[in-house]
């Protein structure tokens, strides 16, 4: 478990360019010889991609909540009317 956790940390540092030249060289040599490590590297890269997607999705959910608040707040009536008129100019 501990070794695999160390690998996770090393992969992260490698992907972020945080390994010193010697450790990077050693890691790349291991990558050539160890298919499991190569798969872990690719999968971990994918995790970062998925985390970015997740963050974007959550941000949009949060913005959706702001939108709902703005368009249901009676104090923002003028703002709401201004926007609605853009899409339905005949309505007052």
């Amino acid at each position, binding site marked *: 478990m501990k070794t695999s956790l160390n690998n996770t940390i090393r992969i992260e540092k490698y992907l972020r360019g945080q390994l010193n030249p010697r450790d990077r060289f050693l890691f790349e040599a291991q990558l050539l010889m160890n298919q499991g490590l190569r798969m872990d590297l690719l999968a971990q890269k994918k995790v970062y991609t998925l985390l970015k997607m997740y963050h974007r999705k959550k941000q949009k959910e949060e913005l959706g909540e702001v939108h709902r608040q703005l368009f249901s707040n009676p104090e923002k009536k003028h703002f709401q009317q201004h*926007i609605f008129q853009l899409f339905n100019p005949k309505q007052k």
Partner: protein
Amino acid sequence: MDKHFVMETQETVITVKKPTLRERPVHEIYERAFPRVAAFVSNKGGSFEDARDIFHDALVIYYEAISENRSSVHTSGEAYILGISKHLWLQKHKKERLHILMSRMEKEISIPDDYFPTAANNRLLRILESAGKKCMELLRAFYYQNVSVKKLTGSLGYTNEHSVSVQKYKCLEKIRNTVKEKSLHYEDFIE
């Protein structure tokens, strides 16, 4: 306090002259920037819902650009968000390319290549949202919300910062293993 910072694009170096949107309340950003995007979308025949969706995507892209010092603006944040919105609109309505006027600044804007996820990534994300939500939240806090280890130590009920750091890597490993297990093909990793 001067909030200027410099960012490079492929062609030029431009400065951001306004405080970043991150530093302003999101409601304020909404009220200032949404009317311009809504007017643009309405003018192009889009609906209120189209305007809302494009605006949210534009804000997400803008936040990323600011936080990664990737993007560049020579004008206000609102104008930049409108520029992103025009690009987003064009992605869906490619035939209108000749009918949408863009300033030099707007032309330099680009939407991140990975912004619209692949079907395989969407499928994986759905799996992770149900099977690894806690870890996804923890990792999001680490990587995207700049929540410090110290703060997480208290809020997650850990006694020391080392435990939180270990938990972060355990989560990373757990999610990685799920990705390996659920990826149907080798290509799923590298797309």
